[in-house]
């Protein structure tokens, strides 16, 4: 109870700020609408309203303020509207037996999730292999690490269309694989860095101990370096999966994809439907939260089994 109170307080403040912002953000649109419906508003031309200050508009048209919370195409929807839209495109469709309809977010979320998991697996594998290479070879460290760092400085939005074009050139059909590549591109880096640190975590005394047993290298890897790196790996995986999801959505944005959460955001933008954009954004955030939470649980179970969880 004492722990839940602060969490709820912060949540309440955020929602409160959001609601407070809705009226000023939407007042101009609401006034246009009210005038079309025959309500007298001050000032009475759109041009004059564009020049008037927002505070002035709110004060002079207090009667229109309630309407700012109930627009069809608001500049900023209320949390309630976003929630309703989310429900309409997920839960309600499930209740109507159309859970996987292409008009629903479950279908699009599933498309995004598939590419994310594929990219995550690919990126994690590459990151771990790279880390092992770096830890065991000075040459690999000098030749691989700079490229890994440079790769993360290139804006992914610029790179995504090229990856898609090149994929289709080598005969890869569909969007799934190129999206996963983009996702892996963002995801491998945190895994590479975290695993390199984890595999190097054993101290000199621990390595000396294994030398006193004349331990072969592969055994020191399996018995010391790998178990030591597990907590580091999980920390990287949590960052990696969030990055993989961002990668997938970015891969869906500029590329003319028609399914996936990124595509929903793009389509919402093109058709002037802010509610669809916000609902897709929240769906992405909920998906990311669920994936990170799932990894967190796995982490605590694995570490407890290893005797390292406290």
């Amino acid at each position, binding site marked *: 109870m004492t722990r839940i109170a602060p969490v709820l307080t912060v949540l309440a403040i955020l929602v409160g700020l959001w609601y407070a912002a809705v009226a000023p953000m939407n007042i101009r649109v609401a006034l246009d609408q009210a005038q079309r419906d025959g309500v007298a508003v001050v000032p009475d031309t759109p041009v004059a309203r564009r020049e008037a200050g927002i505070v002035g508009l709110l004060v002079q048209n207090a009667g229109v303020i309630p309407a700012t919370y109930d627009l069809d195409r608001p500049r900023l929807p209320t949390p309630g509207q976003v929630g309703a839209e989310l429900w309409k495109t997920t839960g309600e469709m499930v209740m109507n037996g159309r859970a996987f309809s292409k008009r629903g977010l479950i279908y699009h979320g599933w498309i995004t999730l598939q590419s994310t998991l594929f990219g995550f697996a690919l990126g994690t594998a590459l990151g771990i292999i790279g880390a092992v290479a770096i830890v065991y070879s000075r040459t690999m460290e000098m030749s691989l690490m700079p490229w890994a760092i440079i790769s993360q400085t290139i804006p992914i939005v610029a790179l995504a269309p090229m990856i898609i074009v090149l994929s289709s050139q080598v005969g890869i059909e569909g969007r799934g694989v190129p999206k996963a590549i983009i996702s892996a591109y963002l995801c491998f880096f945190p895994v590479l860095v975290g695993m390199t640190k984890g595999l190097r975590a054993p101290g000199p005394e621990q390595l*000396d101990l294994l030398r006193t*047993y*004349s331990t072969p290298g592969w055994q020191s890897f399996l018995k010391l370096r790998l*178990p030591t790196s*597990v907590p580091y790996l999980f920390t990287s995986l949590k960052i990696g999966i969030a990055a993989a999801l961002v990668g997938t959505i970015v891969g869906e944005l500029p590329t003319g994809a028609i399914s996936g959460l990124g595509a929903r955001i793009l389509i919402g933008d093109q058709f002037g439907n802010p509610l669809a954009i916000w609902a897709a954004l929240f769906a992405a955030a909920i998906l990311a939260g669920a994936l990170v939470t799932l990894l967190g649980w796995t982490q605590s179970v694995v570490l407890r089994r290893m*005797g390292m969880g406290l």
Partner: protein
Amino acid sequence: MTNDVVIEAHGLDLTFQTGDGPVHALKGVDLSVEAGEFVSFIGPSGCGKTTFLRVVAALEHPTGGTITVNGMTPDEARRKRAYGYVFQAAGLYPWRTIGGNVRLPLEIMGYSKAEQAERVARVLELVDLAGFEKKFPWQLSGGMQQRASIARALAFDADILLMDEPFGALDEIVRDRLNEELLGLWGRTGKTIGFVTHSIPEAVYLSTKIVVMSPRPGRITDVIDSPLPKERPLDIRDSPEFIEIAHRVREGLRAGHGDEV
């Protein structure tokens, strides 16, 4: 009493090349250790006591002179499982149980499963940790963890036990108890023990031979053969013989310091 020499060093030099010029960690060290002896190495930091132990263990390689362990080079001796090494930190793997930690060298050395289990049980008994096999290291006190690390060094029957300030991080009371237990262990197993410490009472209480060392360059200033009997209750530390040896060690340490000024 056998007179087999297990560790023999002649004119041993070890110079580290550092950014600030060469550091003479060991210079002209001559020493021979016989089977079954308990040898303590004592001296201030930088006197080379740990370095000498590491040379015996082939963790460092000398730049001059000769050293043999069981008549072989240190590298060969290590491959023949000549010694077990106990570090200052217990260094148990947190993801392994106490039994799992003691089993570690046995797994690496390829003992059969049955033999592993039998040996783990036997050495845990030896260090008074029977019944803790399934516990994890964090469930044990610092002193118990260090006992487990001693069990790990004993598990594969090396004749020599090298201990680098194993009780340095423990409090006085625990340390006294472990010292007493270590003497008992030494009496029962007949191992040759090389023991690095910077505590004079610890060195005098435990050893049959005390090697006093001094720094810059690291060298031996005195080797004292202890006249104390093999059976040593803790209150032997109040006897005149004990105090006399402790006095001689202190003199040796002071002489080493005097050269430098």
